[in-house]
């Protein structure tokens, strides 16, 4: 089914809640998205918006308790992962869906040699012998650009720099040639120069292997040059989704506009850095209306009372806002007024 329509992953109405003393925290509350084979999807949002929980839900790694996937479907290559027994999910993890985590300093086992951590995967999923797995580990390290891989494969993680460790994580993730790679803020903990290298690496490896990628980040600059589609998340909900170019050019949601305005513009000489006022809401106690209403420039009474609709601006572009059409129209006017300067920013990537 999904393979026929070209979708590697379909997430339908996913809800992941955490039970806390403060009540039920709706970390992810009704997420829908589709990822086509070979494409890259960016998930953008502030801390606590539910990006990481969404992706941990996909491979069912939500710590339970306190977390629980309450409802939804996660259809990976035609199979609903949520209906599979744990044994079957384990065969998918690391083999068909691999993850790269945010902090390479803590995501590798400090007590274990790099070689062993890499070999584990191919021995488990591909049935490699020790020798085969060892050679494969060296090949993978070589592929992610670790110089002198044969000599360094037996090092411990602490003997590598942060950027090198993230390369190791990527080598590990790609060991079994996964069909889907989930990169959860892969560059957040790294220096800016290293960030660019790592992103370039993911990009080129993706082109070589044809893997589909989900890239989670809070940095719009990161997703701009990397992704085909973008989802903007806020308070566990999808606020806007569109093709990358479209989202940057003509955002249809006040929150996305705010995010785009907060990206520092090096060509602008005047003015302080823009920031969206206020803080993300406490997802344990959400108001009845739009969760962004309190921080929104466009908010009216209806926003505080009624939950906004998910408006289809074009077949490919949706926005969760009472005034989606209006915001979208404004964006389009602004775009033509600028004469497409936003496009230039995109091309910089």
């Amino acid at each position, binding site marked *: 089914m999904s393979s026929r329509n070209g979708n590697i992953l379909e997430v339908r109405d996913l809800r992941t809640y955490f039970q806390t003393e403060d009540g039920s925290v709706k970390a992810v509350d009704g997420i829908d998205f589709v990822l086509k084979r070979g494409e890259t999807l960016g998930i953008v949002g502030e801390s606590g918006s539910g990006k990481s929980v969404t992706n941990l839900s996909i*491979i069912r*790694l939500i710590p339970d308790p306190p977390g629980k996937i309450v409802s939804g479907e996660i259809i990976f290559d035609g199979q609903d992962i949520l209906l599979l027994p744990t044994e079957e999910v*384990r*065969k*998918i*993890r*690391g*083999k068909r869906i*691999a*993850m790269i*985590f945010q*902090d390479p300093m*803590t*995501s*590798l*086992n*400090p*007590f*274990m040699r790099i070689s062993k951590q890499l070999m*584990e*995967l191919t021995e*488990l*999923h591909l049935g490699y012998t020790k020798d085969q797995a060892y050679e494969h580990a060296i090949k993978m390290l070589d592929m992610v650009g670790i110089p002198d891989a044969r000599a360094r494969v037996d090092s*411990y993680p*602490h003997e590598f720099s942060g950027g090198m460790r993230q390369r190791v*994580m990527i080598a*590990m993730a790609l060991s079994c040639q996964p069909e889907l790679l989930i990169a959860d803020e892969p560059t957040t903990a790294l220096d800016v120069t290293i960030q660019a290298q790592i992103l370039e690496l993911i990009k080129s490896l993706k082109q070589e292997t044809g893997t589909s990628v989900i890239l989670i980040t809070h940095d719009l600059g990161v997703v701009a040059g990397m992704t085909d589609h973008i989802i903007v998340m806020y308070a566990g909900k999808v606020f806007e989704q569109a093709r990358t170019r479209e989202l940057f050019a003509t955002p249809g949601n006040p929150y996305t506009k705010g995010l785009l305005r907060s990206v520092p513009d090096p060509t602008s000489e005047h003015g302080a850095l823009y920031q969206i006022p206020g803080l993300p809401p406490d997802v344990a106690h959400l108001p009845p209306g739009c969760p962004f209403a309190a921080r929104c420039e466009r908010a009216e009474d209806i926003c505080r009372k009624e939950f906004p609709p998910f408006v289809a601006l074009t077949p490919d572009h949706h926005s969760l806002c009472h005034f989606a059409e209006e915001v979208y129209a404004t964006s389009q006017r602004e775009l033509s007024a600028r004469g497409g300067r936003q496009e230039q920013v995109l091309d910089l990537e």
Partner: protein
Amino acid sequence: MLRFIVRRLIITVPMVIIVVSLTWGLIRLAPGNFYTGEKRIPPAIEQNLREKYGLNKPWYVQYGKMLKNTLMLDFGTSLKYEGQSVGSILARSLPVSATLGLLAYLLALVVGVTAGTLAALKQNSRLDYASMALAMLGISLPNFVLGPLLVLIFSLSLFWLPPTRWGGFPSVNLILPVLTLSAVYMAYIARLTRSGMLEVLRADYIRTARAKGLSEREVVLRHALRGGLMPVVSYTGPALAFLIAGTVVVERIFVYPGLGTYFLNACLNRDEPLIIGIVAFISISVLIFNLLVDIAYGFIDPRIRY
């Protein structure tokens, strides 16, 4: 590494000197001496004896002699056990204490680590609460209560096990003393393991291991246990030293001719050379076991280098 070991061994010398000096001072400060007993020894005989053991010399001469003996690891002869050198008493009693101590620690390690790991894996389950409640009991119940209690149940009521006496190794006589001695350590190790494992199981690299598709068993055994047991390793040094060096109470209860029993008797008898000898031996073994633990760290955690 070698430099580190040599440095640590050199530090052992002043440490032992400080420990025996304090011990010697305390013995001398306490009122009375070896010759004050219920039956007074005639002054003339006491005088002769004092001369024989050099006890009539000024204190600094005696102190110097004690230090010299300690540094040569020759503690002289016991005052109470006439004609027996302190060395021979140590050699005779150490195997008893070491057998008891090692067995107790081994038991504590196996039971404690297993219980602690299971409790951590099933946090807040009945198993967790039950084992932690038992551990609390183990820590709070002093061994001078637990020992007699076990004897009362298993020897005097059920007649399953002998109540006292050293019977060599292996022997059923060991079961009750080992159990008594082990209880506190077992409980403590269970708690250490549990908290260590809970911390490690939340670590990012455990999430990575799970994301690789490893089974929960492999995640725990291959990835979590090593980090989770670090607190237990650091506890092992001092614990093992004290266990092997003898435990006064348990040896007393079960009438074991170990270091603890001799130490207690030496203190009651004011048998100065024997006290100094045993104290020096215990402090040296504590220092050495700590050194061994520090060396072991280097093997367990590759980030630690000396």
